[in-house]
């Protein structure tokens, strides 16, 4: 579901990613640069922070030690018993608190270990004692050495929020009650934090600017390469669309210029070849047209003369009459041959054009069967049509389709050896098909492809009985190809043959299968 309901913006982005080298290069450069910048920035920040903290911590520890030392000195100078413990604590700590207030640190005096009830703790006003981590307090239960740790200080007053800081603790023994107390010095690190923030901000800004610069640079650089490629693509598309005079502009002597030069050479060669072919085709068509005219005029005269003689043959002696008859039939054959030859040359010249309309193959088959019935009767063959009741439509040139079917039927009658000729019509939503089956001599293996060759004869020794020109099937094949259709043959010696014409339902569609199997069903079991 997510794939279908992707937002339009995302789809556009993906399309851009797929189709634009420029976008891909720019984006990957930016991503890689960003990774590098993040790494470098992180390293720099670590270094800066460590440096700052080390410096500050050592200063802080020194200051705390100094305070503790002077406190110890003060205690040693004091008498053990003249004051009670609480007064002594206050007198000891208050001066430190005052100094801390001036210098910016907080102070707390506590017994070691977890906080006990009873106000033995003295601390800077407003200081939240939770700022001293428990772990540090635990530390002084067992140890008396100076220790420090980082924490969040909530000192109240001037610092209402908690700020990062460092806590230094050291122990002193109070003579008044003889117990050990811990003095905590809490030094805020907000200045260091601010410095660090500033450095981070500067680094981030610098990285951002650098990224934009890198993106812009990459965009400009790839544009230099991609623009000529895009131009080449456009020109190639126009060339492919038939605008053969299109050329690329050549500038400079770099790789792109050489690409353009080669491209232009290729285009020129193509153009020349196509011109030549067009010229050849034009000459060929012209030639066909001229031959047509030049041959047909004398043939017409001969034809008419023959007819006049033929009509008057009652008055002729039998030999001359027979000669007139032969002249007549052979003229018919000659005429058909000439027509077929001209048709073939028209195909060869690429001058054959379709005149398409919706053709009902059932009608075509019935028309052909009607006109071939006389010939079939003479040969003792019966034409059987097996066609559906509904029309089998195909977008085709009715004249050509009828010629194909007439050829197939005529061919089948020729080779049926007085057997039946079965004509099957079928269709589906993709294609319409006509198959012509005979039960005559059949075809030897390998012959089913050769039958469509021009002037091919199954048996050269066999006499040609029906004045076929030997071009009928070749023309039929060309006609079928012109429609984007198939014309195929199947045959087996002694079992007859089947010729199948398949036409796409609509012109321009690609055929994938035929509604009629090429090998007839009544021959399959013997495979």
């Amino acid at each position, binding site marked *: 579901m997510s794939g279908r309901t992707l937002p339009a913006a995302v789809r556009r982005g993906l399309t851009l990613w797929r189709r634009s080298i420029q976008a891909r290069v720019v984006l990957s450069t930016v991503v890689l640069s960003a990774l590098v910048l993040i790494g470098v920035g992180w390293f720099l920040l670590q270094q800066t922070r460590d440096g700052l903290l080390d410096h500050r911590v050592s200063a802080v520890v020194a200051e705390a030690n100094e305070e503790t030392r002077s406190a110890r000195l003060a205690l040693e100078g004091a008498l053990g018993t003249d004051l009670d413990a609480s007064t002594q604590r206050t007198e000891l700590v208050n001066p430190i608190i005052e100094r801390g207030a001036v210098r910016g640190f907080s102070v707390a005096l506590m017994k070691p270990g977890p906080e006990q009830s009873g106000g033995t703790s003295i601390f800077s006003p407003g200081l939240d004692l939770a700022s001293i981590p428990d772990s540090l307090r635990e530390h002084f239960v067992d140890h008396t050495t100076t220790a420090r740790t980082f924490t969040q200080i909530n000192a109240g007053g001037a610092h209402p929020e908690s700020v990062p800081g460092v806590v230094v603790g050291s122990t002193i023994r109070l003579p008044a009650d003889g117990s050990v107390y811990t003095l905590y010095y809490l030094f805020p690190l907000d200045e260091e934090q601010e410095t660090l923030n500033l450095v981070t901000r500067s680094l981030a800004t610098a990285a951002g600017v650098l990224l934009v610069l890198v993106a812009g640079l990459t965009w400009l650089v790839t544009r230099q390469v991609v623009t000529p490629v895009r131009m080449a693509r456009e020109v190639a598309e126009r060339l492919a669309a038939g605008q053969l005079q299109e050329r690329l502009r050549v500038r400079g002597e770099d790789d792109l210029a050489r690409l353009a030069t080669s491209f232009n050479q290729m285009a020129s060669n193509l153009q020349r070849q196509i011109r030549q072919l067009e010229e050849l085709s034009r000459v060929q068509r012209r030639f066909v047209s001229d031959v047509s005219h030049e041959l047909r005029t004398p043939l017409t005269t001969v034809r008419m003369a023959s007819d*006049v003689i033929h009509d008057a043959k009652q008055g002729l002696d039998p030999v001359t009459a027979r000669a007139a008859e032969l002249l007549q039939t052979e003229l018919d054959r000659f005429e058909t041959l000439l027509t077929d030859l001209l048709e073939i040359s028209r195909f060869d010249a690429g001058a054959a054009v379709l005149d398409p309309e919706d053709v009902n193959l059932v009608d075509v088959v019935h028309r052909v069967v009607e006109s071939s019935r006389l010939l079939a009767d003479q040969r003792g063959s019966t034409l059987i049509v097996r066609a559906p009741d509904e029309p089998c439509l195909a977008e085709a040139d009715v004249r050509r389709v009828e010629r194909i079917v007439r050829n197939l039927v005529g061919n089948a009658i020729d080779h049926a050896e007085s057997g039946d000729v079965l004509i099957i019509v079928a269709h589906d939503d993709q294609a319409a098909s006509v198959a012509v089956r005979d039960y005559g001599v059949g075809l030897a293996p390998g012959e089913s492809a050769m039958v469509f060759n021009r002037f091919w004869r199954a048996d050269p020794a066999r006499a040609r009985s029906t004045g076929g020109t030997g071009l009928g099937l070749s023309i039929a094949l060309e006609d079928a190809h012109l429609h984007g259709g198939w014309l195929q043959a199947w045959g087996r010696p002694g079992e007859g043959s089947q010729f199948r014409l398949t036409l796409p339902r609509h012109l321009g569609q690609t055929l994938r299968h035929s509604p009629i199997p090429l090998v007839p069903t009544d021959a399959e079991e013997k495979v």
Partner: protein
Amino acid sequence: MSQPVESVSKGRVLVVDDDASLAEMLTIVLRQEGFDSLVCDRGDRAMAAFHEYRPDLVLLDLMLPGLDGIDVCKEIRSESGVPIVMLTAKSDTIDVVLGLESGADDYIVKPFKPKELVARVRARVRRLDPPGNDTLSIGDVQIDVAGHSVTRGGRAVNLTPLEFDLLVCLARKPWQVFTREILLEQVWGYRHQADTRLVNVHVQRLRSKIEHDPENPEVVITVRGVGYKAGTS
């Protein structure tokens, strides 16, 4: 060459063809069928022969020295409606349509059988004179059948006999849609092997003469997939 007995002649045919043998053969065949004929072997002399001979029909080859058959056809058409049958060696659509559009009534492709030629010549010369002397009308087109004249909005329209026959055929049964095959049979007189392009081209020519706007015909209407019929109104 022409037959001396005028009464026997069924009509006079002008044969315009540069091929001497074919022209002579045509003459022989035509004479057998009772037609008188005259041969002209150059395109540029065809008009003179036409004026002099006053034929009932012209057999015109397409390829002629001097003047092209198409041009000869146009010249004859510009001054006369006499039937013209083109002899052509090219059966390609463009050539046929070009010939018909220049004014030919019919065409016959070489090589043809003499009987075929004679049938066409007869069909064109012995025109089936429409019976009745009535006046027909389609829209504002008035057809005087007996007088062989057509007027549109009071102005005379000059039609060839073939175009006239075509119009009368449609006008007599304005309720009927004529297929191209039926028109070929009734107007041209063919039963078989006819080319329906003949009908298309002549309907176009007829429209260009009698329609106000040939692009949107009102008199001769196309019925898609069937044929033609006379306009109502």
